């Protein structure tokens, strides 16, 4: 590493999607940051709040409809990646649940925890977890509807203030 490279000091990650495949990358990036000694905060907005709401967070699903990148290898059916997963099939009741089950199984093998445990891990590691106030109002959610590791409900302005400092990177997922 050369000296003129400025280190990443903090990752502020915005999570706007509520599917399993929309949430996990953000959790993995945040946890990975903490493991490297980089500060991390997660800001959940819009459907990302599904990952914080107690009623939904333990049953998040892989999106099998309108997910053109989904292929027969992705839900771990063991078929080649070149065979697309037909969207029509994804709409059949139970298919998303099945794809989710397969994915969860693969992730467990890689020691990737379920969402609730993952949030607890990030929180224990010193990462911060925030919910977006506007999205909370929109979905009629209260702080007590969210899992207990949420550090606060922030406005967009609060979030930018929280992200202040040289070496912070803001990432939208």
């Amino acid at each position, binding site marked *: 590493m050369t000296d003129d490279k400025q280190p990443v000091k903090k990752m502020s990650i915005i999570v706007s999607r509520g599917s399993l495949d929309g949430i996990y990358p953000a959790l993995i990036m945040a*946890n*990975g940051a*903490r493991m*490297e*000694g980089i500060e991390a905060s997660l800001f959940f907005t819009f459907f990302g709040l599904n990952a914080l709401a107690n009623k939904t967070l333990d049953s998040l699903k892989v999106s099998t409809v309108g997910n053109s990148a989904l292929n027969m290898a992705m839900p771990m059916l063991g078929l080649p990646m070149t065979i697309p997963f037909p969207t029509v099939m994804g709409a059949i009741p139970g298919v998303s649940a099945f794809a989710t089950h397969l994915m969860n199984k693969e992730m467990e093998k890689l*020691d990737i925890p379920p969402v609730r*445990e993952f949030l607890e*891990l990030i929180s*224990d*590691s010193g990462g911060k977890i925030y919910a977006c106030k506007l999205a909370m109002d929109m979905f009629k959610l209260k702080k007590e509807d969210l899992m207990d590791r949420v550090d606060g409900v922030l406005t967009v302005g609060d979030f930018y203030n929280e992200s202040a400092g040289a070496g912070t990177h803001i990432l939208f997922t």
Partner: protein
Amino acid sequence: MKKNIAGTEIDVNEEGYLTDMSQWNEAIAAAIAVEEGIGALGDGHMKVVRYLREQQAKGAALTIRSMGKSGVVTTKELYDLFPGGPLKKSSKIAGIPKPVGCI
């Protein structure tokens, strides 16, 4: 490559991780800990270090999650003991390879 740690010539890779875990001893651990900014190693550190070496000897893949579930240390304690890189720094001090996973 060779590096002199605590008065002994040790085989390390370019990042300073020991390439032969049998060359490790507690004096080497202490010297690496100082170099990594961890300072003096206490009982808490050594418990983690010994656990890591046991797991490595068994060929187990180490993750931050498995450490937290090991019963040896909680996630919070691990971050407090080895600030700036809990698994990376503890592995280096334990004389085992750098963990390769993302978790």
